[in-house]
């Protein structure tokens, strides 16, 4: 699908602060307020994770694949590709907890909910995005490591960046594209 925006990560900008994790918790709480969210039962879930592997930090979540293996393999139709937004949505009411989705997801984007024994995952902040706001993790990222863009834009940005690196002979400063 054209013009579907996704959360991409510019790895070299991630400082591993986990702001995206907290923002995800708050977004998936009842109150949407940090100070209240920490007291909610059940505890608000998150569907992204900050990891450090070798020298890289990165914040990972569902890629909302064009041809999502999780939705393809799901026997009950709990996971589906939403045609309007391009997001892969999930419906806990239909989920039987067979974990086939978890098995086929190349990114580890499935988060088991052990209270309901169902699969859960990044919903793309679908409500926020539909009302014209950015996904919570993108909004919260203080170094702008997370960007919300469509593939075309992302690739154009990378082409420009690589060209600039070639011509300047040096790495782009992480501040260069930041909000000043």
């Amino acid at each position: 699908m054209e013009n579907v925006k996704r959360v991409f990560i510019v790895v070299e900008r991630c400082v591993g602060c986990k702001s995206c994790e907290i923002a995800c918790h708050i977004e998936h709480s009842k109150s949407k307020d940090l100070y209240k969210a920490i007291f909610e039962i059940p505890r608000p879930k998150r569907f992204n994770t900050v990891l450090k592997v070798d020298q890289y930090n990165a914040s990972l979540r569902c890629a909302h694949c064009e041809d999502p293996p999780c939705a393809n393999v799901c026997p009950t139709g709990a996971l589906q590709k939403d045609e309007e937004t391009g997001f892969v949505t999930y419906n806990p009411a239909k989920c039987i907890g067979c974990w086939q989705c978890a098995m086929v997801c190349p990114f580890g984007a499935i988060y088991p909910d052990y209270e309901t024994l169902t699969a859960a995952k990044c919903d793309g902040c679908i409500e926020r995005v539909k009302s014209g706001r950015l996904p919570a993790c993108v909004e919260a990222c203080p170094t702008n490591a997370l960007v919300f863009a469509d593939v075309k834009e992302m690739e154009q940005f990378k082409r420009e960046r690589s060209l600039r690196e070639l011509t300047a002979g040096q790495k782009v400063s992480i501040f260069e594209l930041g909000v000043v």
Partner: protein
Amino acid sequence: MVTDLLKEKKEAIEKSSQEYGMLDEGTVRLLKKEEKEARTTVYHRLARQEPQCGFGELGVCCRMCYMGPCRIDVFNSGGPQLGVCGATADTIVARNLLRETVGGASSHVEHAMEIAEILRDVAEGKLEAYKIRDTEKLLSVARNLGINTENREISEIALEIAEASLEDLYKLDRKPSRWIEKYSPSSSFKKWSALGIVPTNIWQPIVNAMHRTSMGNDADPVNILLADLRMGIVDGYGLTMATELSDVLFGTPNIIHSYANLATIKEDYVNIAVHGHNPALSEKVLEWAEKLQERARAIGAKGINIIGVCCTGNEVLMRHGIPLAANEMQAELAIVTGALDAMVADFQCIWPILAQVASCYHTKLITTVPYVKIPGAIHIEFSPEKADEVARRIIEIGLEAYQQRNPARVFIPNHPEEVYAGFSVEALLGILKKVDPEDPLKPLIENIANGNIYGIAAIVGCPNPKTRKYLFSERLIKELLKNNVLVIVTGCIAHIAAQAGFMNPRKIDEIGVGEGLKSVLKALGGAAGLPSLPPTIHMGSCVDNSRIGVLLKAVSEKLHVDVSSLPVVASAPELITEKAVSIGTWALALGVTVHVCPPLRVLGGPQVADILTRQLRNITGGELYIECDPEKAAKELIRKIREKRIGLGLRA
């Protein structure tokens, strides 16, 4: 053309930075002017920070050692529950809180110390620039401290007071600090003694707090919180000493008339703002402004207009009726009027942005304290010995700058708001004495007992841009006044109240003050020769919260009840500084219910939060209450007052 992946984010930030909520028109117009001319506003800077770090907000980020920084997964979603050293969320939260409290207490202690040093030098005849203006207060401080006043020279008594004050800072014996013992309500002091948290001096609790919170020391949240209460008491020492000795040197405030808000900047005058906290500098600036009025007229101005910003503003309003122009958050807007020629600052709450904003105008920003320098500001080092020279130079810089002013860039909002202030404890007792010369506290206590005054709320602290947008303080104060709660204000909340018209006796009907309270304010106002006392009682700067402490001591000892039994609550509804935290901690130690917003950074530690918000009631009688909805907060504070009234057997 470069692909801008952050376009949407930038737009969202831009939009949010231009949402000024319920702020008043004058402030909003200046914010818009600032945005255009200086390319920044506090709301731009806030929007760029938001959302702020959740670990920090909840107090669960530990940076005490280099195995960290560590943070705790407060949602328990598979993340760490322990720091590298094994510290729990509660340990981390308690340590962080204690360090915040040290920051605040140290500010007040050093402030007090600098005033005490001036008093000592004046008493020894070493200092020409200052003198003892209020000998009556001097004698009362001496009596409070148990210093003999019979057949002694004033300078001799002053010297003993100053030396006793400074001795508390550095002494090594194990007797309680004299100021703390003599100035604290006896019931609170007794509780502190039983808990073993009475400071014997000032340096040790501060050194100890930094030591015990460093890596590999105190990990027991309860033990750390006891140290925190002790630090609150240290803060009380700083507050009390700063106020009492400032009154001795500069005069005890009495009822005074003035004006508030940025409209007090005058287009055809040389405008000089005094910003910060220490009256030692601002008193001299006022003096020299008077002396150099003629020079202002010689350069075509009508004169020199000194305006007050932040707590220095409160100090010079209380003692001299200088207009209360701008709170801490509005300091940069004073520059944005384009009509401010110089701003001179001492210490605390001086935002570095002032230099950047001043650089967009003709305004000269002058720093004066050796440990408060700001890149871009002119630094003229102040010391009591050089006070006259420095103050004169500051006025001269203002006069020079005035001649560079660009009239085309001037915008000053209309309509200054009328203010009655100056309500020191002495001034209040002076009014009450007119009602009952024998027993001045009696009319106050009677009106509390009969319910005309349902309770007393001290609304103190700062103007936080986060809460300013929805006028937290104004809404909270209005609700309290409506329900007959007598509202005392200090610090930047006093600016907010003054600007909202809450210090204008003529607005008492308009504001909707409850009938009982209104009748008391009108009666007392009549005794003071005013149509009414103002709806909120301005007791001074943030260090002058000590005046509330003095009043609490007087009332609790007169009635022989604990401070925690009195129908008194406190609130810092727009908390910014560590000083607000340490003042609040002092109030908790005294036994007062303390409301705060934004939430104190303790909610990530369940045990610490529980102790402060619940268990403390059985320890000091104090209680922390966190709420960020003004109407809900008012309702709950009134409920807490009601509980105390029931406890005292008063009509609830």
